[in-house]
């Protein structure tokens, strides 16, 4: 199909998709939910909805952080490794007797440090984001394994571990954490100067520089946010599984990036939102949850996930072209 045909087709579908336009990805997610409600008896049980909210929460938070980086035109491959690594750190700190608040703050500061290191590598050493974050991905797993000697550190602090299981106002704490991260992220990205500058840097770094924007500072900001989000997820993971283990969260970076891209973020930068990645993460979580409930063979589950990713993104593309 030639581009002109594409344009024509887009024009034709404009009308039809104008309705869907308002629904967007949220509509797709709800559609999935309705379908699963018919297909299974247990999907809409309170219990399962809680589970679903819990299951999507961690990837959702990673995806939000990742989105900040992608908007600047970069990528952060290390988020999974940071999550695993910080789960070890917080476990060690808690086991050493530190109060929870201190352990949490120290862990988040460590996360910030990793993010700053990434930005340093990119800005000062001129390394491609892919390379520096791939290197920390490898190294952090190594360091985590080294200090634990490959073992798991159990967390005996029950207040800490119970947090991840409990609810507040009937909504799982883990999902509240998505809101706790998402709301400031939304304000920052869509309603603050820095958010604006993130887009500007991703769109045209030279133009941003000529406008007097501190481009390097913005890059530091983006990578720090991503790494802090990842270490925050490390805390949640440690609380949820009750241990610190350096090999956890393997491959979550790809899931986070996928959530972000499904949510409409462009890997070329300058396009993205906070709600998109959230929806992306919960769409992926719903696919898994639904497949489990419907007792789909786990091999089929992979195939279906792959196909659904294509279908969802394809329709999202169509809708956006039709806009």
């Amino acid at each position, binding site marked *: 199909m030639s581009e002109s045909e594409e344009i024509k087709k887009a024009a034709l579908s404009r009308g039809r998709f104008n309705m869907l336009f308002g629904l967007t990805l949220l509509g797709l997610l709800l559609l999935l939910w309705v379908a699963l409600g018919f297909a299974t008896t247990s999907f809409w049980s309170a219990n399962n909805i809680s589970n679903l909210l819990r*299951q999507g929460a*961690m990837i959702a938070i990673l995806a939000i952080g990742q989105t900040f980086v992608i908007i600047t035109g970069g990528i952060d491959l290390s988020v999974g490794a940071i999550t695993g690594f910080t789960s070890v750190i917080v476990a060690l700190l808690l086991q050493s007797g530190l109060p929870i608040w201190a352990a949490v703050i120290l862990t988040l500061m460590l996360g910030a440090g990793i993010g700053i290191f990434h930005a340093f590598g990119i800005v000062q050493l001129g390394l491609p984001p892919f390379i520096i974050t791939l290197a920390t991905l490898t190294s952090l797993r190594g360091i985590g394994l080294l200090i634990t000697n490959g073992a798991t550190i159990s967390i005996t602090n029950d207040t800490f571990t119970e947090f991840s299981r409990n609810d507040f106002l009937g909504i799982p704490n883990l999902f509240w954490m998505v809101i706790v991260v998402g709301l400031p992220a939304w304000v920052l990205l869509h309603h603050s100067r820095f958010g604006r500058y993130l887009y500007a840097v991703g769109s045209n770094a030279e133009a941003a520089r000529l406008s007097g924007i501190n481009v390097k500072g913005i890059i530091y900001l983006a990578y720090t946010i991503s790494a802090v989000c990842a270490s925050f997820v490390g805390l949640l993971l440690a609380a949820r*599984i*009750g241990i610190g283990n350096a090999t956890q969260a393997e491959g979550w970076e790809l899931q986070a990036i996928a959530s972000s891209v499904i949510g409409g973020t462009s890997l070329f930068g300058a396009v993205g939102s906070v709600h998109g990645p959230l929806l992306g993460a919960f769409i992926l979580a719903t696919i898994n949850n639904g497949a489990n409930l419907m*007792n789909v063979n786990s091999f089929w589950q992979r195939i279906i996930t792959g196909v659904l990713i294509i279908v969802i993104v394809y329709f999202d593309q169509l809708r956006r072209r039709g806009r």
Partner: protein
Amino acid sequence: PALAQQPTIPIIVKDTTSFYWQIVLAGARAAGRDLGVNVPELGAQSEADINGQISILENAVSGAPAAVVISPTEFQALGRPIDEAAKSVKIIGIDSAADSQSFTSFLTTDNVQGGRVAADGLAAAITEKYGAAEGEVALITALPGVGSLDQRAQGFKEQLAAKYPGLKLISDKVADGQATTGLNITTDLLTANPNLRGIFASNLIMAQGAGQAIAENKVADTVKLIGFDSDDKLVKFLSDGVIAGLVVQDPFRMGYDGIKTALAASKGETVETFVDTGANLVTKANMGDEKIAALLNPKLD
């Protein structure tokens, strides 16, 4: 309609992509057919994915099954979620333990014991060749941070220290789960340590990689390899003399008996609280035994 009346007992394994767990699932499937139970087959996509298994357990419980059969991926981490789940259903554990008192019954191969069996097998093979259980040996683990693999390593090392002081563990390698990595590590071990006499590759995929390296370098005569678990590739290696021995468990039985016990427990019958399904050393000498042959060639359907 018949299906609707059937009780549902999901089985949750550690890693659906590995052959070992497929045999467990096959056992469970067979039990489901024989006993009229609906058996959803669940599991994470990697033995290292603790969070994934917790989510699957939560999902399984919210489907209100008659009972749940689970092989906990990690001792500590699965403790609480299993306690939580046991509040609403009976939980039967298989293969590995968890930090929980809530199991109604438990069927396991002791992985630490499996590691000891491997050490014994390696010592025997080295003695047979060199006349004494002496010399350099190495250990290759497929992935870091996996409970069962760590237990095998632990049992192997403990047994070396306790019973075979002449066997020196000169290298303790952890790979990334890929056969090629096992192959490369083994080749490099052979290059760097010309006096190496034995290797324990502690799971299926590492044994395949290591076996290939032994075959490639034609050192089957001097370097004795012990693997863990089996498939036809490894059985061929064993009969060709590339591999000195395999530690095999009885995954089929674990799956079958797991469902059977769970069904009984769900009906309120009393069940045995602990069953050891055993770990056996298979060598070229005993691989023809009927019982062993059944273990080596489990029927999948």
